[in-house]
């Protein structure tokens, strides 16, 4: 009788859990499907083949897409109204003329446009010189790095020699900025207050980036050296945090060791009493 009752109880327990399992294991419905709220430019052009659809494909991989800067951010127009999306009355600008490109991009990238226009490249605008899109591309714009300066791209217009000298002078600084940025991000992820260091690096990085459009080798070398000194000071602050972390780990090892030793002592004491 008792066995029967126990079996029944166990059966109830089992059925209840099985019910739970059966209810939970259901096909994953459309819960995970996230619908991107795309504008009418993307919806219409994205569906078109060839030249008209290509910009959308390129843009999707760009830093503009990553930062939610859509077609209308540069070309204007009304992204909510399919009929009037490309109406000049709604601010549609279309594609700029070659000489208007720096001003077109410079609406957002104000400082960079200024640097470019004062450089040899900018001064040659309209006379066969490069515009923003010559080096950065138009729709597939990615985060600017020193890799943009390369033999293939530069030698399309002139000899690569001077560009290589400039790139070499900037390479070390660029590497330092990337490495310090990575270290700051890593500390930030551990709860370290990196606000001051972040602001310091931001300011140095911006100054360094103004050199990207400069073609004066002497000035680039001089300014890079100055920036390197400031970066080394930030790196010094990060080294101090690293040192502090090491000390904490040493203290941690002592605490863990002490606790394990205490456990052993208590265990042996218990055995002696037993």
């Amino acid at each position: 009788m008792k066995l029967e009752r126990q079996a029944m109880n166990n059966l109830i327990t089992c059925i209840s859990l099985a019910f739970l399992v059966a209810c939970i294991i259901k096909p994953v419905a459309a819960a995970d499907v996230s619908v991107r709220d795309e504008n009418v430019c993307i919806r219409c052009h994205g569906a078109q083949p060839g030249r008209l659809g290509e910009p959308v494909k390129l843009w999707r991989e760009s830093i503009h897409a990553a930062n939610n800067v859509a077609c209308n951010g540069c070309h204007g127009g009304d992204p909510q109204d399919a009929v009037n999306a490309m109406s000049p009355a709604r601010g549609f600008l279309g594609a700029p003329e070659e000489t208007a490109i720096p001003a077109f991009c410079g609406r957002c990238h104000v400082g960079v446009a200024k640097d470019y226009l004062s450089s040899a490249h900018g001064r040659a605008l309209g006379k066969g010189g490069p515009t923003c899109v010559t080096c950065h591309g138009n729709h597939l714009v990615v985060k600017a790095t020193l890799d943009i300066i390369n033999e293939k791209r530069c030698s399309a217009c002139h000899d690569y020699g001077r560009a290589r000298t400039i790139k070499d002078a900037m390479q070390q600084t660029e590497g330092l900025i990337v490495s310090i940025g990575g270290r700051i991000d890593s500390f930030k992820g551990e709860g370290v207050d990196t606000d001051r260091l972040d602001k310091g690096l931001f300011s140095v990085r911006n100054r360094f980036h103004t050199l990207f459009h400069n073609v004066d080798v002497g000035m680039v070398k001089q300014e890079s050296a100055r920036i390197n000194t400031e970066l080394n000071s930030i790196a010094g602050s990060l080294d101090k945090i690293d040192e502090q972390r090491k000390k904490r780990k040493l203290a941690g090892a002592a605490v863990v060791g002490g606790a394990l030793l205490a456990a052993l002592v208590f265990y042996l004491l218990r055995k002696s009493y037993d």
Partner: protein
Amino acid sequence: MIFVKRIYEWIEVRLGVKELVEKNLTGYLLPRNINFWYSMGSIILFIFAVQVVTGMLLLVYYVPDADKAYSSVTAIMNRVPFGWLIRTCHAIGSSMMVLFLLLHMLSVMFMGSYKRPRELNWLSGFILFSLVQVICLTGYLLPWSQLSFWATTVATNSIGAIPLVGQFIVEFLRGGKLVGPPTLGRFFTLHVAVIPVLIASVVGVHLFLLERIGVSKPPFGLDNTKNRWQGDAFRYDEHTGGIPFFPNYILQDMTSIAIYFSLFAAVVFFCPGIFFPDDAFIQANPFQTPAHIKPEWYFLANYQTLKLFPNEFIGLSIQGAAMTFLALLPFIDWGNEKHPLKRPLFMVCAIGGILLYIGLSIWGHYS
């Protein structure tokens, strides 16, 4: 020495300390086959104590104001002497509390210690487990980070799926339609004043029941592993010829606590990041929803269950049913057998349930 002896005698004649010690420590006998799983309760009490002490220290510098909460936590982590240690201990301690409560509950389940006459011990333990989950949830919002803000938004949103009263409860908890400064005030009050008092009271009830009914006998190493209780009258579960609580078992408790502490310290000093995703160190921004907001590991199974159902109410109901089933387990499982290997159906269901919980948690983590 004479002075100390006189003080002792003065207290002895008034309080009967000798008898008290004999009754509760040296004369308090435990089963001879008691094992280390019985020290889980002591570990949990130790964790509670650490949480209370670190929580009080955090209160000295923490500011429960939406404009200042994040910067006060940043200051604790970076400028207050040993603030990083206190905050890390408190945050990791909360996860440890849940983990060891789960281990304690599992050991009680497998050893059949929840069976009559200990239904109330199980029930009070289950209430404690639920309260600990609530205190963890309310504490999660306090740093006012992106993680805490959005995790609280998601957690409180799901309550809205309850028919009729859901929206009212959500607004009552949040102090408005959305998570905001009033929510922080409410959660802070619950976290530092209301729930700790409730937890302390239920711990008191749990310990009283343990003391009153007596410690259960583990079913291992015995010929007869059936429940001895007849149900005819109240009887204290005596263990004549057993081992004394002091010094024998208290040394086992100390051993377990020291082992736990070494594990805890290893996490605190060497890998605190496992409980802190990047969003935990970004100030809350109600206008920027992070790409992937995941709850703490112990809510991942609940989170994934909710995601599996197109209707949140069904998901909530399933979870409610599972929790009710677990709470009422001693009233459902009436069998006398305590040894897990002699309860094959129980074993299959329990292991299945554990695997399901782990599976859903892993799924929730990677989904």
